[in-house]
């Protein structure tokens, strides 16, 4: 909060030209209204000052724990919720206000939800689900419409399409349902696909099928994909770039394998050490126990400092800007700052030593 004029680092894959979708200084604060329990209205800092670019034909993974703001970020990018501050640029142009512009925007940016069991309407067939967006956004009718629906099903590897087109969601497996949801997203020929935990509800053996589909669509449709997940291993598998979020902010971003092989931010290191890894010879030592802070009153300075094993004096006072930590890699952590005085860097021994989830006063 102390320093909002930090140099802008736009997270996301390296690209030339104009990205398909860009968000600048995106912020979302949800207001908690006063109730009989608390007089004053308070604010949840769900997303704070995030700049992210999604170039076409790339996959950007947003990784974080629950409550880190990753789903809010995805919903902000769809335009489903209005940001408190910041702006969205579609192909470099600001998104104008108004109903017509909004419709145009929704045909370009599509969200695939986590739960294919509830995101499809159980009283309608696959045909209906794919027909709706086509009727609303295109002029295709009758045979052409039918043709297009079948083509969409084939594209998400539900073939032969005749077999699936008249089925109801309950007749499909989880993976097939998620494919229908993706096909529905592709129906209007979007530029951007936002996938919010698209595989976490699916069975292990079919997850890879959906991830591989997203991978193929990146090339074949030139989609700018944002893959929101809590599973850093799958992010590494699919994504070009990983963006790590903590308590509503981006703490680290960079090329996917680079992030997992040499994480620069202590939080990323913590996430990686906690992730299941059968190849690990000895159990990991978690450095930074506890839980994420309350987003109503986030800690001062770096939001990770109460848990951080390396916390220094400055971490409590000043929010770290994204600092270069490798080739195309940025970490919002004072450890990577070179121009700080020794006093700033004196170890802060209260926070991290105090055990789980102690918010700073």
């Amino acid at each position, binding site marked *: 909060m102390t320093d909002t004029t930090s140099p802008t680092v736009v997270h996301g894959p390296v690209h030339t030209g104009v990205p398909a979708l860009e968000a600048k200084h995106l912020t979302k604060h949800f207001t908690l209204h006063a109730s009989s329990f608390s007089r004053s209205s308070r604010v949840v800092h769900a997303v704070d000052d995030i700049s992210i670019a999604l170039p076409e034909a790339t996959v950007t993974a947003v990784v974080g*724990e*629950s409550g880190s703001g990753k789903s809010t970020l995805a919903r902000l990018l769809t335009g489903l919720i209005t940001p408190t501050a910041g702006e969205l640029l579609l192909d470099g142009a600001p998104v104008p206000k108004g109903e017509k512009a909004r419709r145009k925007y929704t045909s370009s940016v599509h969200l695939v939800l986590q739960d294919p069991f509830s995101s499809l309407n159980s009283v309608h067939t696959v045909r209906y689900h794919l027909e709706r967006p086509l009727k609303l956004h295109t002029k295709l009718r009758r045979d052409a419409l039918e043709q297009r629906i079948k083509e969409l099903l084939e594209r998400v590897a539900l073939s032969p399409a005749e077999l699936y087109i008249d089925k109801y969601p309950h007749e499909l*497996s*989880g*993976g*097939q349902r998620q494919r229908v949801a993706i096909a529905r997203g592709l129906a209007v020929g979007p530029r951007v696909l936002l996938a919010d935990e698209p595989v976490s509800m699916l*069975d*292990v*053996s*079919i*997850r*890879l*099928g959906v991830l*591989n589909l997203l*991978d193929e669509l990146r090339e074949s449709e030139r989609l700018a994909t944002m893959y929101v997940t*809590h599973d*850093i*291993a*799958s992010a*590494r*598998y699919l994504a070009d770039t990983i963006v790590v979020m903590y308590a509503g902010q981006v703490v680290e971003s960079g090329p*996917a*394998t680079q992030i*997992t*092989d040499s994480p620069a931010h202590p939080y990323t290191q*913590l*996430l*990686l*050490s*906690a*992730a*299941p*890894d*059968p*190849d*690990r010879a*000895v*159990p*990991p*030592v*978690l*450095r*930074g*126990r*506890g*839980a994420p802070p309350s987003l109503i009153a986030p800690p001062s300075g770096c939001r990770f400092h109460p848990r*951080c*094993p*390396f*916390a*220094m004096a400055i971490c409590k006072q000043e929010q770290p800007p994204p600092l270069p930590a490798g080739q195309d890699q940025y970490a919002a952590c004072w450890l990577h700052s070179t121009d700080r005085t020794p006093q700033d860097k004196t*170890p*802060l*021994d209260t926070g*991290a*030593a105090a*055990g789980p*989830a102690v918010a700073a006063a």
Partner: protein
Amino acid sequence: MTTTSSSLPLAGPPTRGQRREPVLQVRDLCVDYGVGPGSVRAVSGATFDLGRGEVLGIAGESGSGKSTLAYALVRLLRAPGVITNGEVLFHSRPNTGSTLAANVPAADGPVDLLGADAAELRAYRWSEISVVFQSAMHALNPVARIDHQLTDALKQHRRGMNAADRRERAVELLRMVGINADRLRSYPHELSGGMRQRVMIAMALALEPQIVIMDEPTTALDVVTQREILEELMLLRERLGFALIFITHDLSLLLEFADSIAIMYAGRIVERAGGDELLRSPRHPYSLGLLKSFPGLHGERIRMVGIPGSPPSLKDLPSGCKFHVRCPYAMDRCAQDEPILLRPFGETGSRTVACLLHDGLQPPPEQLAAITPVASTTGAKTTEAAEAARPTTPDNEPTGSAR
């Protein structure tokens, strides 16, 4: 009843270290949902031993029958679930050292839990076998305080304890799972998800049971919390010596800490092996497929394929081996003959697999014939693991302390 443990080719205890004496023996357990022509068989012929103090992981996809199996062991199945066959033999502890474990009727030899009457069952549940359910949010009573819920079981099973004893025990239990005693008067909604799960674990351990069954205990939690709870669980197991049945769909997690793992598919146990054995040398094509479905955190990024197709519906199972329609190594025989859980041909260990490829009539495919790792290196893993996982002050870091 004591002599029924026949010479069946049983899934023996794991190879980590020495053979453990069994605390639970499951024989040919079958569970149906519904009766008559419309019924489906959710668990079919499950046979395994659980050693004293062993951590058995049961992994499988949704609908594979892993939860049904666990609930059938303690007869907690909901209405349409019916146990149609089998035996669950529980071996009482040899000598009751603890004052807490005084309420259970002394039995000579094992007790068949499936034949036990209501009173017997009541005595064994919780005090000898306890269950931690998947969703701590829903398993805790939202309108009762934590201390009340913790002492409830003590009140029922330990008539000798007075209120002060029970409270003392509740404090001790909370401390054991790393929760401060001032949380005793909290309601469940005042606790975080991880804390709620810890309370559930504390409740399950209240009577020092010999077996704890955990159904996806960490699935709803974040990875860091999940890791913390697993560490605590392993330390508690070291200390209290209970056996653990850990049910999850996350095989990669199990591989890290389970002594042995049973893989389930379509209601059947298709492979039972030690954790390292399974990771380095899977024998069943489904196990191999599962292992190849988890992207790694290291090395080259390679395209993985997972397992083609999707899990079968229990209403419409294929003939023969239930996996043959998705199996890349399927032979003609697989569509007709259903394999049973056997020791793979030519192996000496205690692992078992239900696959015709390993019956010795043909050499198994190369991918399924990796050499079993030597067990000696893994024998001490659990103890070392617990030591290493114990949060200590790091001595190799320049700043701060981990805890």
